[in-house]
Every structure is written in C-alpha cells, then in structure tokens.
C-alpha cells in the first residue's frame, strides 16, 4: 500500500512525509464490513477512566477538573521547562480565561451609546483565531506539536494578562491621570513579558532549533494585541 511506504519516512529530514503517516492512523482497513459496531480508535484507558467516573458525584468531577486547571495555572505562573501542559492538555483553562477577559473588557461600553455585545465577540474571536493562526504557523514551520496542545499552551499563557486586567481595573478606581497611566503601562508590560516567557518555555522545544524566532514572533504579536486591548480600556 502506498500509505505504508510513506509512513516509513524519516522524521529528521525536511520533507513533510512524516505527516502523511497520520493518515494511516485514522484510515479504516478494507475488510471491515459495513454493518457492525464502530469502534473508536482511542486509548483504552480513557474508556476505563470514563466508565469509572460516571457514577461519581458532580462535585467530584468539577473539583477534579478545577484542580487540574489550577495546577496548570501554577505551571504558567512559574514557568519551568516542563511538559505538563503539553502532556495533559485541556481547553477548560483557556475558555475560562478568555471568557473572563472578554467579560471584563466588555463592561466598559455598557454605559456608552454603543452596544456592549460586539466587544465580547471581538475579544473571543481574536483570542481563538489568533491562537489557531499561531498554531498553523508553527506547524507549517516544521514544529512537532499537535493542534490542541498548542491551543492549550497559548490559552493558558493568557493568565498573566488576565491578572493585569484585574490590576488595571483596580487601579482605574483611583483618579485618572498620567501616574495612573504609567502604573497601568508598567503592569501590562511586565505581564506581557511574562506571558511571552511562559509560552516560549513550553513551545520553543517543539520547533527546529534555528527557527525558534520565526515561531515566537507571531506569539509576540498576539499578546501585544491583547495587551493593547487591556491598556486602552477605560470604564467610562
């Protein structure tokens, strides 16, 4: 079969043949009859995991998931070169962060004549489509990270900027002025740098060594746009 020949490609070369090997994982062989049950080709331990947690209380499930999310938050706040985020990726954390950020950025225009609705949608769309674009870019540059792992890392590394958003809202409760602005600018810049360092610590290993800069630059632009949205936010 042509598929077998392609999947024996050498992953070390620059030809993209190893990616074709993924096709053979999901293709269904010729001699399965049309009738019969469909088996999901996933790891068996996930199915055991699901069946054993079906009977537990909702509180247990939520607490377990929240603990996992909290653990990853800690990894982002103190970034070391580990692959916890990559190994057990989940998208709950990015969703929580994105919704929090969008809600906080939205409340600014409730009092103005402009409807507050598009603000939420804009932030949401920018975060998710920005993350998708960066993931595609890093895959095209030859990185060996999966799609959802990259989304997970980029989403979790928005945490410092969400903290910056909270701090900015508190600072804005004081009277406005240049000092106010300088404080907010300083906080946002520090958190922006923190986000980039955190995401670099997780993503840089998956890129070819001489192209790290090419993969990190769109991450820089992405967090810059989010920082700009946070910095130019005023509640009036």
């Amino acid at each position, binding site marked *: *079969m*042509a*598929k077998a020949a*392609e999947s024996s490609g050498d992953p070390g070369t*620059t*030809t*993209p043949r190893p*990616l*074709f090997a993924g*096709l053979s994982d*999901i*293709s*269904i062989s*010729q*001699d399965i*009859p*049309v009738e019969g049950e469909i088996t999901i080709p996933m790891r068996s331990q996930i199915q055991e995991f699901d069946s054993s947690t079906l009977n537990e209380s909702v509180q247990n499930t939520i607490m377990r998931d929240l603990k996992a999310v909290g653990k990853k938050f800690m990894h982002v706040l103190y970034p070391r070169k580990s692959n916890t985020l990559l190994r057990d990726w989940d998208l709950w954390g990015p969703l929580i962060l994105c919704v929090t950020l969008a809600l906080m950025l939205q409340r*600014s*225009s409730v009092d*103005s*004549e*402009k409807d507050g609705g*598009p*603000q939420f949608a*804009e932030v949401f769309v*920018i975060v998710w489509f920005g993350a998708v674009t960066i993931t*595609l*870019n890093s*895959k*095209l*540059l*030859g990185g060996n990270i999966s799609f959802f792992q990259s989304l997970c890392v980029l989403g979790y590394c928005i945490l410092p900027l969400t903290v910056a958003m909270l701090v900015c809202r508190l600072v804005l409760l004081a009277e406005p002025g240049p000092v106010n602005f300088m404080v907010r600018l300083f906080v946002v810049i520090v958190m922006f740098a923190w986000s980039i360092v955190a995401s670099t610590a997780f993503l840089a290993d998956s890129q070819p060594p*001489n*192209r790290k*800069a*090419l993969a990190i*630059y*769109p991450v820089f*632009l992405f967090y*810059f*746009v989010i920082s*700009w*949205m946070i910095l*130019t*936010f*005023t509640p009036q």
Partner: protein
Amino acid sequence: MATTAAPAGGARSGAGPEWGGFEENIQGGGSAVIDMENMDDTSGSSFEDMGELHQRLREEEVDADAAAAEEEDGEFLGMKGFKGQLSRQVADQMWQAGKRQASRAFSLYANIDILRPYFDVEPAQVRSRLLESMIPVKMVSFPQKIAGELYGPLMLVFTLVAILLHGMKTSDTIIREGTLMGTAIGTCFGYWLGVSSFIYFLAYLCNAQITMLQMLALLGYGLFGHCIVLFITYNIHLHALFYLFWLLVGGLSTLRMVAVLVSRTVGPTQRLLLCGTLAALHMLFLLYLHFAYHKVVEGILDTLEGPNIPPMQRVPRDIPAALPAARLSATVLNATAKAVAVTLQSH
C-alpha cells in the same frame, strides 16, 4: 509544467464493468489543491516541485486504494449467489464512495502540507529579504528573481494590523475599538490579497511572467515600508515628516516592486499600465492608512478642544454639536460637503 490529477478511473480493468462508471462519477476531477504553476526560468526553487510531488503521491495512494477494492470485488463473484453478490457489491461501492469522500474532506485539512514548502525559511533569509525589499535593483533585461515564500508577507500583514491598532493610543477610542479591530484586519488582508489578485490579473492581460505566489510575496514584502512609515509617524505627529517618509520610504519600496515587474514584462505600454497601477495603489494605500486613522484622532481632539482649526488643516469628521452657533444647523452641515463645513466653522 502544471500537473493536474489524472482521474484514477481511467485505467479500470476490474471485474465489475457495470459499476465502473459509478466510480468515475464519484472520483471527481482530482483533489482540492491549489496548483501553482512552476513556470519560468527564474523560479529555480524546489518549492513548486515539492507541492507537485505531494500531489502525485496522494493520487497514487487513491489509485492504490481503488485497485485493491477492485481485486476484492473480483473474489466475491464466484462464491455467492447473484443477489448476495449484488448487495455485496452495492455495499462495497457505497463504502468506497463514502471513504473516498471522507479522505478528500480530510485532504482539505492535510492541504496544510501543500503550504508547507512556502514556509520553509530561515530567520537570516527573512531578514535579508526584508532589507532587500527597500533596495530597487536596476536590472531590467533579465527577469529578477522573486522568493516564493509566504511566511514573511503573512507576518508583515499581521505586523501592519498591530501597528494600525497601536496608532489608536488615545483612550477615548474605546468606543470605536470594536469596529477598528475588524476594520484593521479587513483592510490589511483585503489590500494584500485583493491588490495581489488584481495586479496578477493585469499581469495576465499584459503578458507578464509572474505567478500568483510571487505576486503575493512581492506585495507582502512591499508592506515592510508601510510598516516602518506608519510606526514612526503614529508616534511623531508631524505632517511634514509623514510626507517626507511617504515619498522616501514608500517610494523606495514601490520602486523595487516596479523594477521587478518591469524586468518581467515586455512592451512599453504593458509596462506602463502594470507598474503605474501598482505604484498608484501602493502609494495611495499608505496615504489612506495614515489619514483614515489620523482623522479619527483629530475628530476626538476637536471635540475636546473646540473648533480651533487653522484653515489649512484637514476637515474634521463631524461638526461638534457643542458649538452654540452651529447647533441648529449641525444636522444640515453634517449632510453637506466638508469644504462648506470648514468655511462656516471658521466664522
């Protein structure tokens, strides 16, 4: 040489001739691939070759699938009765058709691999290409080489979007922020893709030797000059400085693109048409970017400071309704031409 997919149903010698036509109809005309021409003498890069190689491999794979299916059909014919055989064949054909559609849908995802050769760059290459985009080369007798990559242009478009957003630093723009983001992204991408397509179309009319990929890359790198000018002039609000940079930096990057196009076109009329259009669009876009967003800033400053506009300045967007004399006629003035508004306001 453009290589299109030869339909796999061409050489069908299987045991089910009555179902052969069915397969061919399902096959369609090949895969959903953007086939880039590998055409001229200067594109000695292997990028297009890689794309064709992948396409050929995928077609072989589809052929091998179909051939294996045909062998299995042949085995069943001698075994069961006619009805069983018929239902079996129908089921298998439907399975094959469904599988082929699913794999074609999947290949739309795997089309990422088609773009992969265009992202095969090193940081040093990107840097040198950025610098070269500001240096016009005066060789017009031989076609100048254009690097067919998409990473640099794509990153430059995103950078331009970020710079446009950064240009709106005043905090009062929060109200307009929602639409500005979408407008900035739409403007930059629309310019890059739209003007590239338009110039490619003109190049086709004027018989110029340039491919769509090369046009995208050329125009994308031409945006480097725009990024520099806007980054500087959004921070230093001097009109004279902007005009100087517009002519100098914008002019240099336009000249570079024009020189490349001239080297690839034959005939003075065609050269004039193509290069004149590109130069006009490129320079006018920079002008538009500066003034469209500058106007919003000026409009806000007007509402803060009042109608103290020197007569030679640009017209504000709206008459501030706070003007007691103009309150009654505000609605009327806002509907008339801007020149009339300036005259009335200076009274």
